[in-house]
């Protein structure tokens, strides 16, 4: 850990307060040595319209994905990327982005696959920073390349594949897509391009908690108490120690992965990044339609 921890009172109520920083803290730490700010957005042009001074841009689509295989970059690719962004293995990374940190959480999750130790999210993300009238710039930093080591990616702990999900059935699953995607309504619209999966619906027994419910009106995360009410009570994960979240391609569920892992402290949370674009098109996997979670399929 390079940069100090944000002592903000609200953050201390979370299981891992060291994973978040407030906009006020970040503004005071813009020049803290060893701190690198990374912007990662759903919209690829937002960074160009103005960003937090000193922030570098990481694009999930074009920089974190393997261009050919549906997978993330490998250890060598990650080392090259980190070096190009001026990030050391010891750097404190603060990630922020648009839409309540939706894509920023995805980037943070990918950084976690490579075991980068100190990665934090900016609570409230880009919108909060702008709403508070804090400084923006269109200047692109040119960081000096670093000597980031080639580390192997470790998928087991926080990433689930289709077979892992099949083996997991019976334990808590959270579907973080919109209600229409969950019920399966959004599929057969004549003369409209398809939505990227052959069937609509959800994985049997999965509870629906659209990802954005974790965010309050101002884009910051809800309090630990509110989050517990949503996930532990309403979605009935209770004190479960092993949860899988999924969405359409794994981006929105990274956000929920962050909430369950770092804010609520669930011991093992995996993100099924194949998500509905894989499950909804795979042969002979069980699915359910409608608003109810559905029954566990007989095996």
């Amino acid at each position, binding site marked *: 850990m390079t940069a100090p921890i944000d002592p903000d009172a609200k953050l201390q109520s979370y299981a891992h307060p060291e994973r978040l920083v407030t906009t006020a803290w970040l503004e005071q730490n813009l020049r803290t040595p060893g701190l690198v700010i990374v912007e990662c957005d*759903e*919209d690829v042009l937002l960074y160009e*319209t103005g960003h937090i001074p000193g922030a570098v841009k990481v694009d999930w*689509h*074009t920089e974190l994905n393997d261009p050919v295989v549906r997978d993330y970059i490998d250890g060598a690719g990650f080392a090259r990327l980190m070096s190009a962004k001026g990030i050391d293995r010891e750097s404190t990374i603060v990630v922020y982005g648009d839409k309540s940190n939706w894509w920023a959480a995805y980037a943070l999750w990918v950084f976690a696959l490579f075991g980068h130790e100190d990665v934090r999210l900016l609570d409230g993300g880009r919108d909060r920073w702008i709403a508070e009238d804090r400084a923006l710039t269109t200047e692109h930093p040119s960081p000096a390349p670093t000597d980031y080591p080639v580390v192997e990616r470790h998928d087991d702990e926080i990433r689930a594949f289709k077979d892992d999900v099949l083996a997991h059935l019976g334990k808590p699953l959270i579907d973080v897509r919109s209600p229409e995607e969950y019920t399966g309504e959004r599929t057969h619209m004549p003369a*409209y*391009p398809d939505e990227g999966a052959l069937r609509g619906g959800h994985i049997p027994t999965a509870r629906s908690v659209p990802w954005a419910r974790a965010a309050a009106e101002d884009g910051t995360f809800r309090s630990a108490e509110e989050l517990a009410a949503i996930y532990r009570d309403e979605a009935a994960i209770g004190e479960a120690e092993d949860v899988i979240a999924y969405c359409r391609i794994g981006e929105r569920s990274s956000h929920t992965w962050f909430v369950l892992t770092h804010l609520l402290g669930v011991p093992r949370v995996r993100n099924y990044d194949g998500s509905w674009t894989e499950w909804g098109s795979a042969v002979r996997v069980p699915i359910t339609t409608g608003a109810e979670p559905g029954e566990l399929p007989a095996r």
Partner: protein
Amino acid sequence: MSTALPDSLAEIRDDFHALGEKDRLQLLLEFSNELPELPPEHRDRTDLFERVEECQSPVFLLVDVRDGTVHVHATAPAESPTTRGFASILVQGLSGLSVDDVLAVPADFAFDLGLTSAVSPLRLRGMTGMLGRIQRQVREKSAA
């Protein structure tokens, strides 16, 4: 009906191809900043507009066909410059064309702009969705 790119869109495509990758994003940003304002008669008529579900951000389209000429109107929020850029390319490239010319635009035009590695194919699907919806509206509104 043949599929061919009208001059207006061919020109836009050539402008993108003439640039290096980084500058292509800047050009898209320029398009985004130049999305034409709605004409006064459409400003408060959100009921007439069709939402583009393929885009994550709220994008709304309205197509007018008058005397065989197509007019495309679109709105997209400033916080979604990429989507605004796509909408702006289609609004500027398709408005003023004939019905047949608009319907002849290849469905995969978005992938012709040289943006696949800078913007990613997934995002370009949003633009393909917009074009598909514009063409469907043109078909519906020119059938009467």
